[in-house]
């Protein structure tokens, strides 16, 4: 429905804003300003990237796109939760981002529910990386947030095509 798409586009922009705020803060506070320098660390920690192929322009199919969008948001919600204890300065921004992602996942789930395409049960969270040092939590935060931003970019385009 139009209402769902308008609200979703606004939520994507809201999450993009809180993601950028988190990245700015991690850069200013910990000098971790280049996600591309943390890819190797991401591999060793097992930080996942959520796929959104079902929403790409070639294969845009609403039900598949919504379900991949929901699974991706659910994954990033878990990833952001795994970063808890990152640091007192950054924790409030991280909590805000995590709540915004969780609320957007609910919006998508509600839409799938009203279209009658929602699976019977909520997805189960895959195992999350464990961060064993403050640096890993901060670097993990930079990497996960930058992956979330590119995920949202694709979601934004898909939602606009659906609108």
């Amino acid at each position, binding site marked *: 429905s139009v209402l769902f798409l*308008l609200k979703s586009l*606004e939520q994507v922009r*809201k999450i993009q804003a809180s993601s950028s705020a988190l990245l700015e803060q991690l850069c200013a506070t910990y000098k971790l300003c280049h996600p591309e320098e943390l890819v190797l660390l991401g591999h060793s920690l097992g930080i996942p990237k959520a796929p959104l192929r079902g929403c790409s322009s070639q294969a845009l199919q609403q039900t598949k796109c919504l379900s991949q969008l929901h699974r991706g948001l659910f994954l990033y919600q878990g990833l952001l939760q795994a970063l808890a204890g990152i640091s007192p300065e950054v924790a409030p921004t991280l*909590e*805000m981002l995590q709540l915004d992602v969780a*609320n957007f996942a*609910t*919006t998508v789930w509600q839409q799938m529910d009203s279209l009658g395409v929602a699976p019977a049960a909520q997805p189960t969270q895959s195992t999350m990386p464990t961060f064993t040092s403050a640096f890993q939590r901060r670097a993990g935060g930079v990497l996960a947030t930058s992956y979330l931003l590119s995920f949202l970019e694709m979601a934004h385009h898909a939602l606009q095509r659906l609108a």
Partner: protein
Amino acid sequence: MLSCGHIRISPPIVRLGDPVLASCTVSPNCSKLDQQPKILWRLQDEPVQPGDRQHRLPDGSQESLITLPHLNYTQAFLFCLVPWDNSFQVLDQAELLAGYPPASPSNLSCLMYLSNNSLVCQWEPGPETHLPTNFILKSYSRADCQYQEGTILNCVPKKRQSNCSIPRKHLLLYQNMVIWVQAENMLGSSESPKLCLDPMDVVKLEPPVLRALDAASGQPGCLRLSWKPWKPSEFMEQECELRYQPQLEGANCTLVSHLPSSQNQFELCGLHQAPVYTLQMRCIRSSLPGLWSSWSPGLQLRPT
């Protein structure tokens, strides 16, 4: 050593003006008292009065009963006394409270503040009850507001305040939530009508930030300005209104509607009525429910 006298009241809290029934029992082994003391009563500072009836109980104690027909104090002390020399001795004291059950709280309204990400609701508590009365803002999130699923959230306002702030972590944004106020004291409880709203539909929007630009075109009677939305609301699509007025006694206002929420340069011409014009803007969420922001502070500009 058992205390000599003991007051019992039922009920201890009554509606203002209702009767109160009290009894005072004086135990027989209360030393220094003669066997059948004349039990007396005193309400606050009123004159001492005898009870309605005094009789002996099986265990030998004396019991006096009194009915206060209309308790007109919201708070008062009732004393049980016995005569002593040419004065009295207080044996026991009880506190009487009177007031009203709470009326239903009314005018419940809520605003979502993006600055601290909390939903603040306020209400009218209704007439004074004269009794300690607890107000609780209750809410739960549920997409279609009918069913009551998930736990009910209780938001307890600060003392004597008729507003409460629900923090971000308890809010499910972009979903409808049901909100109401419950009021309760010793004489009863009541509830306000229920509100059903999505917090993001009641965002308290702040006005945009206006900036003067030096007029590009040489044409007289023109001025240029730019504006951008209030930073925390940038993610919301908004449309805005501009009103401007020459600084003249009783000059009327011109309104320009349906403007975008941010504009790098905007030119206004035909402004010949006065050397200085005052401009203000306000915005509202577009294509989704929302509330108008207040007007921005006046920006004084000199047309060319």
